[in-house]
């Protein structure tokens, strides 16, 4: 079912209200809720966090928009809190990290599948295979330090195996920038995709920067430092695919449309009825915010938002395992590298990035050490060792 955003006006901004207990609701269950419910919680926290980040940047550059931005931002602050506080207290920071990487893999893969612009699709594949590898490294850390199984979080939806090895992700800044879409010719779908993935990656970067120092183990501190650096590169990559000549209000409008579109996907996909009601409510709130910004655009820029937005938003992002698609991309593109804005075969990688990486990895690579010889196995890698020891004892007894 498509969503007619020009006709659906949602909840008026003035009626979007909260109380503290309404903001802090019981969390989801780490054990019983579907992994994609957690994926949605993490993704939508990222979308709202980007809404706040953009809104503050915009306010600092546009005096005349400050009041409208502040009004909308106040609601978004509470929306983000409501969503982020759905994460349960028994979910450790490293377990939440596993959830972040599942978001990066499954949502980016779904976006890449739907994306019609071949260059943008290539860019999503490039980032996808790096986040895929991050999941493997963090899973090794979780198993080897905490003695826990990453698949308890992933629930079999997402593979745990190496992607493009993290030690090769470190590139010179000039090799992280990509070509932007053209605001005049890009489809609405391409714009919504770019806004979604940029938000998710920015949140991931900020999360790793916050939780990295909370670990006491140098191995964990090093791994978070390394992967946070790559997430910073991903933010650089994904923000560069967005046309920088869009006006501030145009960008604001697209942010609101991206929020509407993603809440719509949450409503369509959610299996937990209590959480679904939150998505439904916030979809209505976002429609109200979108119409508020449409009015701002008409008033300030004298432009018709309908020129920028389709009446009906494209089909929502599917929230499902994209295992087969990810495997295809992995088999085909794991060895690709970057040269300026282009994704190229390994042998054509820019010298600047090779030199940059050699210097950064000069003391060794944390991500390689953490996952040295690691192959995920149900429960723990120790299971393989235990089985091997038992077989050896049986063999010795027979001998």
């Amino acid at each position: 079912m498509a969503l007619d955003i020009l006709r659906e006006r949602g909840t008026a901004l003035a009626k979007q209200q909260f109380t503290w207990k309404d903001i802090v609701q019981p969390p989801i269950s780490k054990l019983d809720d579907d992994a994609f419910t957690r994926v949605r919680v993490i993704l939508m926290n990222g979308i709202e966090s980007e809404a706040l980040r953009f809104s503050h940047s915009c306010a600092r550059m546009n005096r005349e928009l400050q009041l409208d931005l502040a009004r909308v931002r106040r609601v978004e602050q509470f929306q983000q809190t409501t969503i982020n506080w759905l994460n349960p207290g028994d979910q450790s920071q490293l377990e939440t990290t596993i959830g972040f990487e599942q978001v990066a893999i499954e949502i980016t893969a779904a976006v890449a599948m739907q994306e019609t612009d071949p260059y943008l699709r290539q860019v999503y594949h490039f980032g996808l295979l790096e986040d895929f590898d991050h999941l493997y490294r963090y899973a090794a850390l979780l198993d080897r330090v905490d003695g826990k199984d990453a698949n308890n979080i992933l629930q079999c939806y997402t593979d745990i195996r190496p992607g493009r090895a993290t030690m090769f992700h470190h590139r010179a800044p000039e090799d992280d920038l990509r070509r932007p879409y053209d605001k005049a010719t890009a489809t609405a779908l391409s714009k919504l995709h770019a806004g979604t993935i940029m938000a998710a990656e920015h949140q991931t970067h900020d999360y790793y920067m916050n939780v990295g120092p909370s670990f006491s183990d140098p191995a964990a501190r090093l791994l978070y430092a390394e992967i946070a650096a790559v997430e910073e590169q991903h933010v650089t990559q994904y923000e560069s695919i967005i046309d920088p000549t869009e006006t501030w209000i145009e960008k604001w409008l697209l942010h609101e449309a991206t929020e509407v579109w993603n809440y719509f996907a949450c409503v369509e996909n959610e299996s937990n009825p209590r959480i679904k009601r939150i998505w439904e409510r916030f979809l209505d709130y976002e429609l109200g915010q979108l119409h508020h910004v449409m009015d701002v655009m008409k008033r300030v820029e004298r432009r018709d938002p309908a020129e920028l937005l389709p009446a009906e938003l494209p089909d929502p992002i599917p929230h499902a395992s994209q295992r087969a698609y990810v495997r295809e991309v992995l088999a085909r593109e794991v060895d690709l590298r970057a040269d300026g804005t282009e994704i190229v075969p390994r042998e054509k990688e820019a010298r600047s990035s090779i030199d940059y990486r050699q210097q950064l990895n000069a003391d060794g690579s944390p991500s390689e050490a953490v996952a040295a010889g690691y192959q995920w196995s149900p429960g723990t890698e120790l299971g393989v060792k235990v089985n091997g020891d038992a077989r050896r004892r049986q063999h010795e007894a027979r001998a």
Partner: protein
Amino acid sequence: MNSVTEMGMNRTGMATSPVDGKALVEGAREGAPTSAGDAQQLDALRDDYVNAKMKVGSVPPPASMKGAMGAIANAVKGADMASFIDRLGERLAFERAGTRLYEALISKYQHLADVDMEPSLGQLQEIRDEEMAHFAILRAAIGELGGDPTVETPAADVSGVASMGLPKVLTDPRTTFTQCLEAILTAELVDNDGWALLIKMAEQFNRKDMAAQFRGALAEEQEHLTKVRSWLEARVLKGRPVD
């Protein structure tokens, strides 16, 4: 609070997703590690940091002249005053936190629908009060040695890190009373050994008065441990693991 732990939709295991689970295992087997080695490689990452020989922190010098003199006198005898203050600080922090843990357990107890089994509210309150009294004993002992009882000593800090999960369990509205008793049991086990060690240290410093006081505290802690164990066992073995 949940009154019943039901068989339900736990989705964390492989058996929940037979098709995806099989694909996951196959995929992991196909994905060869990018470097050789095993979990020991993590030690290589830690080595430089371990070799830097940094510490969590230190015990401050005695706050009073009396304490300074005591430290010097005992240093001559070979006993380590800093280590004694460190351990006293650890127990003080533990008893202070223990008081709060029992307050959280009492709060959890007050939401129990069915209170026909031990403990009673009075029994829990009694233990809570004893934990607080132990805190007061330690505060006085540290002061008497010229130390500052408001200091967080290294042993107190490390012990706080080790027991970080306890208040998380006790204050989570979703945990059962039985699950909370399990958490309290881990605290009581550590506490018993902590007091036994303090008694030996007090004797080493020839502080018979303190050693006697600490023996009294240990006797109470032993009683706490026995009670918590029996309450937990009764609930688990007699079919009350879930409230």
